[in-house]
């Protein structure tokens, strides 16, 4: 088994009202030095056998991210023996 991690984030120019709402709540936690918060998605894809980066990129490009508003990055994550 192998895991590929895909992180999807709104493009910088796209407004993130969820992140703004979270940032707006931070003063109530007594935190005053946060300039901004942006929220994205973290997706873990597990393959049978080897990590298939090409296929993971295809999944991310076609389905996980909408290129109009989002960017994505992907990486292979090494699995600990205990996870296998």
């Amino acid at each position, binding site marked *: 088994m192998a895991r590929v991690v895909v992180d999807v984030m709104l493009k910088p120019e796209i407004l993130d*009202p*969820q992140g703004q*709402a979270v940032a707006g709540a931070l003063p109530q936690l007594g935190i005053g030095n946060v300039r901004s918060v942006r929220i994205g998605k973290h997706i873990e894809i597990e393959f049978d056998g080897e990590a298939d980066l090409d296929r993971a990129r295809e999944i991310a490009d076609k*389905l996980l991210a909408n290129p*109009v508003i989002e960017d994505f990055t992907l990486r292979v994550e090494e699995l600990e023996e205990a996870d296998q």
Partner: protein
Amino acid sequence: MSMRIGVVTFPGSLDDRDAQRAVRLAGAEPVALWHADADLHGVDAVILPGGFSYGDYLRCGAIARFSAVMDSVIKAAGDGLPVLGICNGFQILCEAHLLPGALTRNEHLHFRNRDQWLRVESTSTAWTAGFQAGQEILIPVKNGEGCYVADRRTLDELEGSGRIVARYVRGNPNGSQRDIAAVRNEAGNVVGIMPHPEHAVEALTGPSVDGLGFFTSVLAHLGAHA
């Protein structure tokens, strides 16, 4: 023979029955289409209704776009089949790249549910030919992710080519860029609209009967092209 207009039901669709009813009131025969059935059953036009297809998981419309019926809708739209996406249907059309841009979380984060004034700006579509350019209409809007966004070049191109079908007037309910409520494809057969014309087709249940114009427009369009 009356025109047959397909209304797709996805898991999580809510407004399919209202859309069918609007089709019937306009004088056509509604045909129920199913998300897992690629067969369009010979319909003359297709409506993608509002709701929360596939639970809005991942992004609104993102999973519906890969359903069996959408493969057929995308192909048929390319051949000129009139397609109207309402609310979640608009989101699906954007995800399917039949329309530019995307619908994102309302700017103020609140779900908005109210009667909304729109100005019809493009009447050169299969679904709005029965309106007057500049006509103001009142139909319900109800969405949490209806904020239309696209890059500036796309927005300029939409404006320059008259592809903004309707704009919000007397208040923008969701922060949509340039007050965009509805857009069309280049050919004018595909239209996506955030508010709900199918909820404004009868005096008893709607704020007006302005929504009926979308459904009678497509019948006139189909009649003229038969």
